[in-house]
């Protein structure tokens, strides 16, 4: 077994408290209904006279049937469209809203960061607001005094800490609010889209601190519209849609289902495939180098997130010689084979592979659109598509997982793909089958290695060179 040196590398740390640690949060059938009244007075009438059976107004269910347990050291994300109930759930967990049904058990201290500077008094200075927020969370003056320097250091707003908070930019606000919320050593930390305001350096700093807190045993619940951040940071996730729990489980799968749900809402029926399309390409599939059936991964336990238009029938990972492998040396090619059965007429297919490292960082993802691979412009129902994707593993020795995804794009949009802006192009793409975390592989150091064993730091070994010359002194 090749040794893996740790010089200059931060290895992913195991949480100090195991994931099967003490219970941090338990929900049972939690729901929230708002009563909508036609007149404000009706609300008071309902409150006082409601016990006699009369009722005014009607119910609107913002959240329904949420149950889960979160242990210390775990992180869970909540994703969903606007209005799906994410913020409502966090407000209930924070103790701000009373649930209509169910119950929540929280054995420890909760710190919530629900809105930019929500606990802040605009007239008072940052310093005073730190103590104020500490008091709100139940911490006395002396306790906050102890933590003050650390908070000020993290927030990094310099002398503005003694200026009224109303003068702060939104970035300064969130830095201070985050610093306070994460310094009180809470057992449960609830964060609702507060990080979206900061710049990328701030977000990185925040996630590092969240990771440190999580390793220290805090349980973290994160709501974000940036599903990629949820996928990277959280192991589990909850997908909400109009107040109902659509999915609960691994974050990777939840994110895929989120795209599907979101897609469902704007889906347009593709026109039937034109008969007699580029038929020659259909036969090419049989000429593609294809591994033995024994090389294929067992897909029985693997989740397939699909909208029903396709089904993945085989995934294999092989080395340069076509043999199934899950261990590679740095710099070697890895060849991904995947086969998909098309269950409904589509136009141009798109296939791709995404590789993630052990920390959930997306190292490399590329699809046929990006390779500009020649693809058929129409595929009929019942056809099988085979993909052979070769990737040179110029990446750091680590454990990696990969996922396979199939999508489709209309012929019209495909022809115009060069003209589209990135976001617009992907808005026209319809995901039809994704297998998150379908397989894993390891990359080892390439030994013997020239000139030295560790050929680069960090995730990617990018092509390049460095030249040195001696400049004359004076």
């Amino acid at each position, binding site marked *: 077994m090749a040794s893996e040196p740790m010089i200059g590398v931060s290895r992913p740390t195991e949480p100090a408290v195991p994931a099967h640690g003490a219970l941090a949060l338990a929900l049972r059938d939690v729901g929230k209904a708002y*009563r909508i009244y036609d007149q404000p007075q009706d609300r008071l009438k309902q409150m006082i006279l409601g016990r006699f059976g009369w009722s005014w107004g009607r119910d609107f269910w913002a959240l329904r049937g949420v149950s889960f347990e979160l242990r210390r050291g775990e992180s869970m994300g909540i994703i969903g469209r606007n209005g799906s109930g994410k913020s409502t759930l966090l407000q209930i967990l924070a103790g701000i809203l009373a*649930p209509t049904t169910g*119950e*929540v*058990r929280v054995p*420890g201290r909760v710190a919530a960061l629900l809105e930019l500077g*929500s*606990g802040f008094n605009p007239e008072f200075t940052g310093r005073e607001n730190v103590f104020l927020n500490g008091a*709100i969370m139940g911490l006395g003056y002396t306790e906050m005094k102890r933590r003050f320097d650390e908070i000020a250091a993290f927030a990094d707003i310099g002398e503005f800490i003694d200026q009224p908070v109303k003068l702060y930019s939104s970035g300064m606000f969130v830095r201070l609010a985050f610093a306070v919320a994460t310094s009180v050593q809470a057992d449960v930390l609830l964060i609702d889209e507060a990080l979206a305001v900061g710049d990328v350096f701030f977000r990185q700093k925040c996630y590092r601190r969240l990771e440190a807190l999580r390793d220290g045993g805090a349980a973290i619940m994160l709501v974000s519209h940036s599903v990629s951040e949820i996928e990277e940071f959280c192991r589990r996730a909850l997908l909400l849609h109009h107040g109902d729990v659509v999915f609960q489980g691994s974050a990777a799968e939840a994110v895929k289902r989120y795209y599907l749900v979101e897609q469902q809402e704007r889906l347009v029926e593709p026109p039937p495939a034109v008969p007699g399309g580029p038929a020659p390409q259909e036969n090419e599939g049989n000429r593609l180098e294809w591994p033995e059936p024994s090389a294929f991964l067992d897909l029985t336990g693997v989740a397939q997130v699909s909208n029903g238009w396709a089904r993945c029938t085989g995934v294999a990972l092989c080395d340069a010689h076509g043999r199934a492998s899950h261990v590679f040396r740095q710099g070697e090619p890895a060849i991904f084979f995947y086969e998909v059965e098309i269950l409904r007429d589509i136009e141009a297919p798109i296939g791709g592979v995404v590789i993630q490292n052990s920390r959930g960082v997306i190292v490399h993802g590329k699809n046929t659109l990006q390779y500009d691979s020649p693809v058929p412009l129409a595929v009929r129902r019942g056809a099988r598509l085979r993909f052979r994707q070769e990737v040179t593993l110029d990446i750091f020795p680590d454990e990696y997982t990969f996922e396979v995804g199939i999508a489709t794009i209309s012929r019209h949009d495909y022809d115009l793909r060069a003209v589209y802006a990135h976001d617009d192009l992907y808005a026209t793409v319809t995901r039809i089958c994704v297998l998150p975390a379908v397989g894993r592989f390891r990359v080892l150091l390439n030994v013997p290695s020239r000139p030295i064993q560790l050929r680069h730091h960090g995730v990617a070994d990018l092509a390049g060179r460095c030249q040195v010359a001696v400049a004359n002194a004076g």
Partner: protein
Amino acid sequence: MSTLITPRAESVWHHLNPLGFARGLWGHRNLILQFTVREVQGRYKASSLGLFWSFLHPLLLLLIYTFVFGVVFQARWPHLRRTGDLAEFALVLFCGLIPFNLLAECVSRATSLVVTVPNYVRKVPFPLEVLPVSAVGSASFHAAMSLGVLVVMRLVTQGAIAPTLVLFPLVVMPLLFLCLGLTWFIASLVVFIRDLGYVVPLALQVLLFATPIFYPLDAVPERFQPLLRGNPLALIVEDFRRVVFWDLPPDWGRLAGCALVGATVMLLGYAWFMKTKRGFADVL
């Protein structure tokens, strides 16, 4: 620190328990102190005269009242040591105004206490019952300052300090209870019935004249006396004047009655606030 969050609200009896009430507020004493201090500071933080307004405001009003009632109406106060002395008349007026202003300030602040901080209701798990306490606390601070001014003025004009001043805390207790109870009650009610914000200033105007501030209680015609005696503030003001100005001990029986009424109002107001607290987030 285990918490169980359920849809079932605690019963009203739970909040009416005096021990629970005391324990709850004591638990938040740090927050109450911080908020009270900030409120006192904050009132004058932005102004250049600062804390000086605390003195100036009551003094200016006093001057106007003295002029209108003392000079224009030439009202007479039967018990004055030196009849016709305008300075003494002003002091008596001032003495009655202090407890009234305390109540008036608390009650009118109550109409904006909760509705102006929707953040504390919807975004942060905040013990909202703390806000009325700090409002009463900061109003008490200003009342204490006015009292200080009164004592000094009396010292200057009459060369005397009431020895009964030490009994002052006993007299002010029922007033504080009353203020707290009313503030809790009104602060909560305003959330649901915004119109209350218009009713309160009007009611205070009525109360100003319905309380024996510009006249002694005895001066009121016999048939109206029971009506005025029903106003707890009237009795408090009378006792206040006795202790601070007339150098007399308060009417103990009357004081005990006021204390009881005050304490009841306080507990009921608190229970009302705690019970309706859950509904705030749905409205604001």
